[in-house]
């Protein structure tokens, strides 16, 4: 795979055939729900999850008792039995989790889709509930000290004791290498957060709604982990979101225009770690994202030019922009130029990105908000609706075992 990446030649002979893929065009997202995204919910995560799931069930036109599967990824504080006991879903027969943090943002949808495509469950609910703003924030430096005299794993043993403790920092290392090799400037980086903030101004549910930001504001924002500034980094969010997956067949009887999954992919290439992917020959690109893109295009039988709108998992601006390169929306090393001025990723641009504000300006809900916006674009109900959307792409986090889906009308 690494060689495939270096040669930019995707091997298909060792992949399952497209005909064998049961998810393609057979499965759809039929319900979406969320709570308010706030900085201090004052409620616990189970409470928030119940509300978001109820909203998704209502949105789909289902009853709570129809839900027979649950899916999320690890780093989750909820307990499935407690969730079932609160929601009162008597017929559950499928559940799943996946590791890899934000990389699994879409993997959850893949697994839920696989369950309904194989008849294991009828309606699977994918949920995420977090109090990261007021409660436990993943990936903060000072979190570590209270309870960790020894690094959590052997692998973290090589980095945490150095004061190298946060995903932002880990990503900064390959991010800087990318900036160095391709002469990417800070001014260019800034356009990603600035355009996302523009989108958030039309989205009353976004954390940064009503708080516009100019490119100047961005340039003046403080450095957090050089090369990343404050506004390069995702927001902290209290809130929950959920979506419901079923077969296209069942979707016909439901309330909403289904967002049909045209392709789904997961990928974990060689020497994968959580952001600290430093042993590959080149670290200025994202093998896993390239691979996810290739697999999505192979299964959906389309290319980057066919994608109308994309929600790219962007815990930091760099992660968003490199994905543009690896997914083929621009040439390798051209990401900086591509986002310069912002037009290419604005609503009428070549590839409108993160149209609800993304992780930087809408909410950091581990990618659930991206999937939901991807669905809205298909339904035609986005606050920043792109015209005539046929194909809507969503990806999982960069620098980790990643994932992605392409939705279609």
């Amino acid at each position, binding site marked *: 795979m690494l060689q495939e990446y270096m040669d930019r030649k995707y091997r298909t002979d060792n992949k399952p055939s497209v005909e064998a893929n049961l998810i393609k065009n057979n499965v759809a997202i039929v319900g979406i729900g969320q709570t308010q995204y706030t900085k201090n919910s004052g*409620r616990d995560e189970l409470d928030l999850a*119940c509300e978001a799931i109820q909203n998704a069930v209502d949105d789909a036109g289902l009853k709570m008792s129809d839900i027979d599967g649950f899916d999320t990824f690890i780093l989750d504080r909820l307990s499935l039995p407690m969730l079932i006991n609160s929601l*009162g879903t008597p017929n559950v027969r499928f559940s799943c989790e996946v590791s890899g943090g934000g990389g699994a943002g879409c993997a959850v949808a893949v697994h839920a889709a696989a369950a309904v495509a194989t008849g294991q469950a009828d309606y699977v609910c994918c949920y995420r509930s977090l*109090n990261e703003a007021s409660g436990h924030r993943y990936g903060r430096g000072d979190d570590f000290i209270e309870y960790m005299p020894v690094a959590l794993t052997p692998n973290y043993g090589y980095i945490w004791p150095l004061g190298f403790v946060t995903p932002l920092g880990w990503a900064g290392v390959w991010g800087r290498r990318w900036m160095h090799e391709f002469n990417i400037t800070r001014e260019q980086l800034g356009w990603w957060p600035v355009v996302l903030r523009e989108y958030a101004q039309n989205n009353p549910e976004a954390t940064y709604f009503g708080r516009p930001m100019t490119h100047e504001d961005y340039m003046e924002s403080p450095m957090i982990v050089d090369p990343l500034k404050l506004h390069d980094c995702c927001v902290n969010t209290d809130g929950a979101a959920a979506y419901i997956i079923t077969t296209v067949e069942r979707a016909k009887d439901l309330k909403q225009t289904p967002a049909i999954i045209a392709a789904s992919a997961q990928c974990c290439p060689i020497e994968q770690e959580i952001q600290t992917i430093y042993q590959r020959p080149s670290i200025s690109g994202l093998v896993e994202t390239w691979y996810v893109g290739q697999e999505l295009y192979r299964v959906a039988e389309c290319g980057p030019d066919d994608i109308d709108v994309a929600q790219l998992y962007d815990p930091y601006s760099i992660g968003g922009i490199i994905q543009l390169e690896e997914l083929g929306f621009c040439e390798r090393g051209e990401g900086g130029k591509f986002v310069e001025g912002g037009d290419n990723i604005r609503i009428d641009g070549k590839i409108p990105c993160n149209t609800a504000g993304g992780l930087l300006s809408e909410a950091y809900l581990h990618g659930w908000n991206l999937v939901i916006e991807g669905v809205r674009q298909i339904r035609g109900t986005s606050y920043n609706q792109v015209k005539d959307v046929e194909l809507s792409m969503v990806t999982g986090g960069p620098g980790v075992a990643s994932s992605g889906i392409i939705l279609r009308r």
Partner: protein
Amino acid sequence: MTVEYNPDQKIPHPAMWGVLYKSSTPFWEGVKNKKIMLQKCKSCGNLLNPPRPMCPKCQSQENEWITAKGTGKIYSWVTFNEAPHPAFKAPYAAVLVELDEGPRIVSNMVDVKPEDLEIGMAVEVTFEDVAEDLTLPKFRKAG
């Protein structure tokens, strides 16, 4: 017999979850005030035990708290011949009491030896201050 504790060991306290899990706070606040509080769905009247943010019968998120009478019957029990935690002196029993209102809660017995326990035994609540900062609802034979 009453459960005996090792004075130099800390009895496991319920975690005070605060905002991390709001549903259980009223129960422990109630215990402090020597009451057994039960969560009741405002919409359908279902008693929710253990407490939780949504009623599994009707999906309402509105609920209220009522005070239990504190009477019930022993539903089951375990005798620990080895203490799984150093704060407790073995042997001792943990009992599962079915309250007259319906819900079941785990507790200990006061003044009843483990060998005298019986399923169905009528019991009533009593509150014991087992540590400076910990009150627990316990049960004794009714009447």
